């Protein structure tokens, strides 16, 4: 590609750093942009704008333009806090419009294999929030993976002794799902967690 255009080669290189983008996708994106200069300006501006304005909330570590974020300063239930791995998990819960408490983004999950230990998560900051004394329940909403489960167990050990109620998201069969398509492991969990009516 070098012999055609150095700047194009550079763009391809940058695009390929993005997740899910390989050689072919990078070429497709680059040539699409070449054909529509108006889009290029808008895209470049929004990239810079996001980069300049969006940051992590100093309280909950969610993404925000104003620090502290709208959720942390908003009129929400201060007695309950939901712990998630990433900002996008927080957005997923917000979309459900069924949680009215506060959040705390851990910025990852325990994974010694990838070099992530408690010190790499925002746990010290979380404990500081607990120390202020208003929180009565912590909802653990880490992922249902080996790492997420380990993180949930770690946090339970840490938080329970503080006299705070610790709960975990339920898991099992998705809403609107036909039973016949549920995989064996999910079905097993669903049966274990069945509830009385």
């Amino acid at each position, binding site marked *: 590609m070098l012999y055609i255009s150095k700047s194009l080669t550079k763009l391809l290189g940058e695009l390929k750093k993005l997740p899910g983008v390989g050689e072919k996708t990078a070429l497709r994106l680059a040539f699409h942009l070449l054909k529509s200069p108006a889009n290029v300006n808008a895209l470049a501006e929004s990239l810079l704008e996001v980069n300049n304005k969006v940051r992590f909330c100093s309280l909950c570590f969610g993404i925000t333009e104003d620090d502290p974020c709208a959720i942390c300063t908003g009129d929400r239930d201060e007695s309950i806090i939901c712990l998630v791995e990433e900002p996008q998990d927080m957005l997923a819960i917000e979309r459900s419009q069924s949680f009215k408490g506060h959040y705390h983004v851990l910025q990852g999950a*325990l*994974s*010694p*294999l990838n070099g992530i*230990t*408690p*010190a790499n998560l925002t746990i010290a900051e979380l404990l500081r929030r607990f120390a202020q004394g208003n929180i009565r329940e912590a909802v653990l909403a880490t992922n249902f993976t*080996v*790492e997420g*489960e*380990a993180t949930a*167990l*770690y946090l339970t*050990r840490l938080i329970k002794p503080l006299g705070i109620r610790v709960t975990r998201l339920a898991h099992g069969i998705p809403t609107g799902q036909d039973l016949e398509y549920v995989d*064996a*492991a999910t079905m*097993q969990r669903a049966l274990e967690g069945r509830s009385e009516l």
Partner: protein
Amino acid sequence: MILNKIYIHSFRNLEETEISFGSRFNVFYGKNAQGKTNLLESIFLLGTMKSFRMARNGDLIKWGADYGLLKGWVEKENVTREISLLLEKQGRKAKIDQKQVTKLADFFGSLNVVVFSPEEIAMVRGMPDARRRYLDRAIFSGDASYLRLYQEYYKILKNRNTLLKNGDTNGLDVWSDKLAETGARLITKRIAYLSEIKGLLGDFYSNIAGNGEEAGVIYHSHLPDKERLLADSGALLREALTKSAAEERRRGVTVVGPHRDDLEFLLNGKVLKHHASQGQQRSYILALKMAEIEYIRQRFDYPPVLLLDDMTSELDRERSRNLMEFLETKQMQVFITTTSLNNVMLKDAENYCTFSIESGKVLN
């Protein structure tokens, strides 16, 4: 379960071919190094995506070719499915009825195979990992959910070992608990499998050996207290982890758990490795395989396909006759390789299809 037909293209030394099989005994005969075992291996690959000879793709693809292709038509409960496996230098791609399959667990059960080959004897005398591998694979072939549990356990183990290696104790507790919990489930499934096949193993061994010797198997865990192992393996494993903390710190690895456990093969109550002849050891492994077959048959209501590699070099005349007589009473498809047809005692000739193999060519 019956493999009706196979198509082979650029695999090992075999010529491109399509072969129809009989529903009972299929005997591949010919001199050594002609391709008999390659044929058996192609069937095993279609069933498991793996080779029983620890081969890499480069070895499996015919010399000079870019890829190899295997297809099998498998009949189960009156439905025939087409399984195909594309071998490329970089990887393997499986399809069932022309649809791509990405997860091993989805491929599971499309063609169940059990193999008995000269290499298996290493399982008796070799390191524990060969026996663990056998056990895990055998359980998985009857219980697809075992794979997930197994992968989960090893992921937790690797994470925990990383902490130990780094001498980082913050959070170690959590990984210990997870390891104990998942490890206990693994141990429970292993013990349950062994207790299911124990009786079968004994019966099959006496059928093959034709004497009063008694074959047994026990799960050899590094955890003490056999009584509690079944009832309370989680707590037991947790205690053992605590006890071995000092050793773990020194060595930087997890020293107890199902990843260290072993199988103990017994004949007349004595350890097979030390107290049995070659012939006894071979008969034992064969009986173990037969028990595995019966286990699969009981679980799914159909038997897997049995692959016997170079059987006659494995067993003496008496034992191989016992085996053939025994197999003739079982409704199941069997593939056998042998150097001479005379080695395979034909009783009921119409049950047999024979194929001669010469320099990679299969002649019917």
